[in-house]
């Protein structure tokens, strides 16, 4: 299957020069500079199919924005290949950008001083959107994002949430088949986030729009993306579904037991549970943790309830945040390399 986006062995290096310290150093810098190549994106390859919504995450400085900037044609790759919507982004920039939508959460795409609706009118002309399409889309956008209330306000007077709604709508005005969103929910309150997520979901469902979004808010991914790519130090560490991520990196499971009385605690500690960690959280609350390779939660529970009287049982679900945090910290990586 041909992907909407195809990336092969993509590399981006930046040449930075290292400043020497102090006045004397600054003077030496004038004459001879020490340059260093920093690899922001290191040989990544992936393919995105039509209609996919992909989350692109990684700690700060991992190379997410650099990747997005190469995919949108802003930066020229050092080496490697990108084909998006059938174009090489940087080489056929003007024709390519006609077919994509871009949202930068940190920076508005709209004209600062003019009213929102006039920005939309300009974009309509730039992307050559027909009057009827424009009307239909604006109506649709208004239903979900409630743009109507501030259409006549200049962009600089909007709150962050309002501005972001406008920015997302602006990027989708020409109904592009491919959309890149760089931190679209950064700094937004829960209602604004929800609005924007709902809008993106709706657009994806209605038009089969392919979307790639970077975020630090993993709930964005959980709610929107079936697929997730994790990047760190410029390298792609993981590419797959959320469930897959948990299966692969969720090594340790835990069961929480609420015991009937104190006596049961003693019985529990006397049980010979090989390879299962036993931890007393409160007087009657115990936590058993075990490697998922050796034990299943069902087996652990069966062993326990045969010997101990238990009032309640809770199986601890490891949160996606937890898994991702461990990946960022490099703990899980060692395991996956094995």
């Amino acid at each position, binding site marked *: 299957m041909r992907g909407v986006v195809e990336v092969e062995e993509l590399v981006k290096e930046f040449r930075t020069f290292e400043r020497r310290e102090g006045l004397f150093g600054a003077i030496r810098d004038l004459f001879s500079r020490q340059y260093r190549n920093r690899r922001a994106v290191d040989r990544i390859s992936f393919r995105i199919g039509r209609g996919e919504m992909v989350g692109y995450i990684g700690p700060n400085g991992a190379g997410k924005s650099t990747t997005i900037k190469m995919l949108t*044609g*802003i*930066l020229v790759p050092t080496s490697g290949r990108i084909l998006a919507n059938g174009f090489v982004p940087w080489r056929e920039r003007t024709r390519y950008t006609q077919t994509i939508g*871009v949202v930068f959460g940190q920076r508005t795409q709209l004209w600062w*001083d003019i009213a929102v609706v006039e920005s939309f009118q300009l974009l309509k002309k730039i992307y050559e959107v027909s009057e009827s399409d424009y009307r239909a889309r604006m109506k649709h956008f208004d239903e979900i994002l409630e743009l109507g209330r501030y259409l006549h306000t200049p962009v600089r007077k909007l709150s962050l949430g309002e501005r972001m709604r406008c920015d997302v709508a602006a990027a989708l005005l020409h109904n592009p088949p491919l959309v890149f969103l760089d931190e679209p929910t950064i700094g937004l309150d829960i209602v604004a986030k929800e609005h924007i997520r709902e809008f993106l979901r709706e657009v994806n469902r209605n038009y089969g729009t392919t979307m790639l979004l970077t975020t630090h808010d993993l709930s964005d991914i959980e709610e929107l993306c079936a697929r997730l790519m994790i990047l760190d130090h410029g390298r792609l560490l993981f590419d797959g579904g959320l469930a897959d991520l948990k299966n692969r990196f969720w090594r340790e499971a835990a069961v929480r037991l609420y015991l009937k009385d104190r006596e049961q605690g003693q019985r529990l500690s006397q049980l010979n549970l090989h390879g299962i960690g036993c931890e007393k959280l409160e007087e009657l609350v115990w936590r058993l943790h075990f490697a998922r390779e050796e034990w299943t939660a069902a087996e652990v529970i069966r062993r326990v309830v045969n010997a101990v009287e238990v009032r309640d049982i809770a199986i601890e679900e490891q949160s996606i945040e937890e898994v991702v945090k461990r990946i960022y910290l490099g703990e899980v990586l060692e395991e996956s390399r094995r």
Partner: protein
Amino acid sequence: MRRHISLLVEYFIQYSKVRLAYRGDFLISVVTTVVATVFGVATVWLIFHRVPRLVGWDFYEILFLYGFSLLPMSLFNMLSINLYYFGETYIVEGKFDRVLVRPLNSLFQILFEQFRLESLSDMVLGVVLLVGCARHLGFALGPWEWLYLAAATVCGCVIYLAIFLMLTCVSFWMEDRVGVIPPVYNMLTFGRYPLDIYNPFVKFLLSWIVPFGFATFYPTASLLKEDLYRHYIYLVPLVAASFFLLALWIWSRGVRNYSSTGS
């Protein structure tokens, strides 16, 4: 191409609306521009009206040259506002990202997203000076002459744009703020006087290296001093086109070298 032209009109209307919305600010700006130009003209007047002839040019011819120099200058000033701050706003603040994700020529967006409207007042003053001086000189300004001056104005503006575009491109390669634009900008005024008053080196510099002479002096000279400078008529568009093409080439190299900001 058609889309670019209709957008140019649209940008102009939008920007004018924004500027006119801040009425006081705009009016002050117009008044300052007019006062500055009038002072400039007055200075030339004071310096030259006692000198009967300078390197073969008499007072009203010098004033005519000065008047014409206001035309390409005002057109350039109207368009160059973004070039002047390009390094700071577009490169350092990363606003250039926005330009690159739109399906329009990048230079088009830089030149035409903002206008310094008040610079057009210089255009009016320039025309007034031209008409006044022509009357004193007994020189008939017919339709052909106006057409010629209009074409020369466009060429002059293109020459200015080309030079400053090249200087602007420096910011694509150097992240440090480079102060090359202001000194060259001051050199613009050199072209307001007959080039023969300068030493041969400066004359050569203003003709062939930084061809401000071709923006103002040569077109005027070939009109007023036909016997000496007639052939320069053909060189004016040639110089404008070649410098502009060179600038475009450097610009496109610069865009490819653009490395955006960190976030």
